[in-house]
């Protein structure tokens, strides 16, 4: 911005006004209300009347010329309590009252003795001067108190900033402080692309600046000096702009606006604005720094994820492939030496491992569908025991020495779900349970409450370390390093969770008190759903289904 403002030569209002200047000025004090004035003058009057009564009581012991001293405390009290004017009022009242004592007995208000006349005059002068002094010390006390309050607020403010990590919240906090301490509309502008100033945050929200404001703000950044407002630099601007300076230079502009009254700040307020601007500058700088850190963290996390994904993919693809390739190459080289049973066993291995690879690929595709948002779950009214039956059928001939037991509550309500997704989610959880529960039973338990239906898969495996109960659902996440677990375990649970949530349900893992893990899928039951109260009992709880009898495991 090379354009020169109309009056750029004039130095803008000094931002660090000396303290004496501040003292002379009215402390941004609101005009006193009528009530307060009435109280001040009434009390002052009463104090003078009290002095008058006291004076009458002790008159006989005092020399006539000293009687005025009786009134001096009342004047000082009034001035100290209410300031110069009530003090002056008290001195005038005292002077009038004093005439009563000093006048000749016949004529109460005629002071005949010139010495007495002078005593009253000097008293009035002294009293007025004392009032002024009292007023000044009162003012100093008020200033000190205001300064202490500001210091407290600034301290609280910096404490508050220290506790905020988020960049937007940081800047908002700084702006809120300006807004509330100075009673102004405030905004922060930060140079964006091409060094154009962008409104970072405004209180209340502002979309765009007027032409004059924009020029004033640009001038402010360029010259690192305040502009706009009541300054002579860009006086048309509705806002007053102060630069946000740090060791790095000007990082932005703070603009304040008093609305229709025009932005005129007292020197005290300028001081405060300057202090707040310093805070805001540090804040803006910190926010920018924080953004860098956040960005770096994101990159690192993405990288970690990518590494985990790569090693998982490697392991999960290579392990079944190793069995398939090994089996096939073995049959090819030594096939003639194998008896029929061994040949069959080896071909069986190749088949099982191919199926495993296929399941893993299926999971990978499911994850992709979840990630790309192409998954659209249907909502059909479904019988849970139907799904359990379908899953058990898929485990038929599963070569594991584990028994799958079902415990499905009779009268289980029908639930609006996507059959295929629920089946796959359940299959993966069961697959995982079977991998870890190498002995004992795996129980599929289905229960319901008034509003939810839960399918829980309980195993007798080693359980899940508490710190992994949540992370176990992270894709490609395994409790141990990648190849120390059975291949294909890195995605199944992530798919189950994704599917469950896509259908409005929840999937959580926990540990059973007696050992083993339990995975619970909970779905809401639609109120409107038809709830046929037919007998839903497919099996007696805890009695094995015919299909789930474990087949004799071929391996050791």
């Amino acid at each position, binding site marked *: 911005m090379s354009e020169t403002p109309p009056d750029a030569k004039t130095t803008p209002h000094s931002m660090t006004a000396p303290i004496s200047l501040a003292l002379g000025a009215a402390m941004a004090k609101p005009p006193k209300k009528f009530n307060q004035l009435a109280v001040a003058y009434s009390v002052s009057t009463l104090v003078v009347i009290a002095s008058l009564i006291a004076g009458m009581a002790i008159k006989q012991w005092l020399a006539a010329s000293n009687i005025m001293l009786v009134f001096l405390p009342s004047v000082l009290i009034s001035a100290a309590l209410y300031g110069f004017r009530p003090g002056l009022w008290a001195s005038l009242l005292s002077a009038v009252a004093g005439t009563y004592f000093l006048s000749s007995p016949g004529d109460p208000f005629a002071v005949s003795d010139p010495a007495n006349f002078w005593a009253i005059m000097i008293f009035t002068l002294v009293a007025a001067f004392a009032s002024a002094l009292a007023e000044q010390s009162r003012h100093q006390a008020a200033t000190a108190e205001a300064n202490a309050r500001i210091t407290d607020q600034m301290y609280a403010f910096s404490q508050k900033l220290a506790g905020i990590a988020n960049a937007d919240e940081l800047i908002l906090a700084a702006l809120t402080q300006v807004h509330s301490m100075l009673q102004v509309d405030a905004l922060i502008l930060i140079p964006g692309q091409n060094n154009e100033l962008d409104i970072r945050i405004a209180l209340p929200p502002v979309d765009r600046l007027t032409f004059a404001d924009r020029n004033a703000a640009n001038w402010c950044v360029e010259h690192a000096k305040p502009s706009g407002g009541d300054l002579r630099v860009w006086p048309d601007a509705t806002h007053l702009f102060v630069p946000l300076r740090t060791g790095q230079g000007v990082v932005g502009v703070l603009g304040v606006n008093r609305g229709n009254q025009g932005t005129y700040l007292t020197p005290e307020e300028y001081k405060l604005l300057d202090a707040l601007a310093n805070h805001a500058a540090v804040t803006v700088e910190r926010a920018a720094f924080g953004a860098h850190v956040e960005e770096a963290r994101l990159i690192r996390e993405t990288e970690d994820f990518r590494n985990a994904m790569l090693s998982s993919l490697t392991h999960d693809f*290579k392990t079944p492939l190793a069995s398939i*390739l*090994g089996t096939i*190459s073995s049959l090819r080289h030594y096939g003639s*030496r194998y008896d029929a049973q*061994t040949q069959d066993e*080896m071909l069986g291995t190749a088949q099982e491992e191919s199926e495993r690879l296929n399941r893993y690929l299926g999971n990978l595709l499911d994850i992709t569908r979840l990630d790309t948002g192409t998954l659209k779950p249907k909502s059909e009214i479904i019988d849970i025991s139907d799904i359990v039956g379908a899953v058990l059928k898929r485990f038929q001939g599963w070569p594991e020495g584990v028994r799958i037991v079902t415990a499905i509550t009779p009268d289980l309500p029908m639930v609006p779900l996507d059959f295929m997704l629920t089946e796959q989610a359940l299959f993966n959880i069961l697959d995982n349970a079977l991998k870890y529960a190498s002995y004992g039973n795996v129980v599929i338990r289905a229960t319901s409450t008034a509003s939810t239906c839960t399918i829980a898969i309980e195993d007798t495996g080693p359980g899940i370390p508490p710190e992994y109960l949540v992370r176990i659902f992270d894709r490609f996440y395994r409790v141990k390093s990648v190849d120390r677990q059975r291949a294909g375990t890195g995605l199944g649970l992530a798919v189950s969770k994704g599917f469950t949530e896509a259908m409005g349900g929840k999937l959580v893992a926990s540990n059973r008190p007696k050992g083993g893990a339990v995975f619970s899928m909970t779905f809401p039951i639609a109120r409107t759903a038809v709830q046929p109260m037919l007998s839903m009992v497919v099996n007696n709880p805890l009695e094995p289904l015919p299909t789930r009898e474990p087949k004799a495991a071929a391996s050791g």
Partner: protein
Amino acid sequence: MPDNKVTILIVDDEPAIRRFLRNTLAVQDYRVIEAENAEAAAWSVRHEKPDLIVLDLGLPDRDGLELIRDWRAALAVPIIVLSSRVDEKTKVAVLDAGADDYMSKPFGVDELMARIRTALRHRFTSQGTQPAFSTGQLEMDLVKRLVRVRGEDVKLSPKEYDILKELVIHAGKVLIHSHLLREVWGGETAVDVQYLRVYIRQIRQKIERDPERPEYIVTESGVGYRLQMHE
């Protein structure tokens, strides 16, 4: 041992891999024992005295690399590592810890069987240093310091000879770069892998029919070199 069969211990947590390895080795008259985790493997090594161990690195209870380190201190049993880990760092660490060979999953069994035979032969021959060695058309006399290829004498510089000798002593086994540098250059510091590459190239030009497609000194990418055995 109940009979004279060579005993091979398979350590892998994947039942499918154990199954085809067991069958393949059994038809070739090896006695096979299996372990599905590190604990069972350690027990078998102590009580069944295998002649060779085929080891997967990713075991549920311990990392295979730790097992190699444990065993190397006390045993001379050849160890062939099978793993789906493909990074060079792991390969070097495994070989450096004392494994005889490293194969990446997936692999063909013929290749594995050849490596097993080499490792076993090496085990039986390395107990007394053999004065004469030959494979294919390469002959080496370690006493007379003679090298012959396809019937003709080959003149090698002392360093070239030392490198070839080290490869021949460990014929069939992968020797990592740092091993060769240590054995040939001894305590000399600041000897670079680049040196080794230069010498290997010179040796290949002298003994290989086609240095671009070496028959004897084969490169294990990023890891080291191996003297290929010809049967």
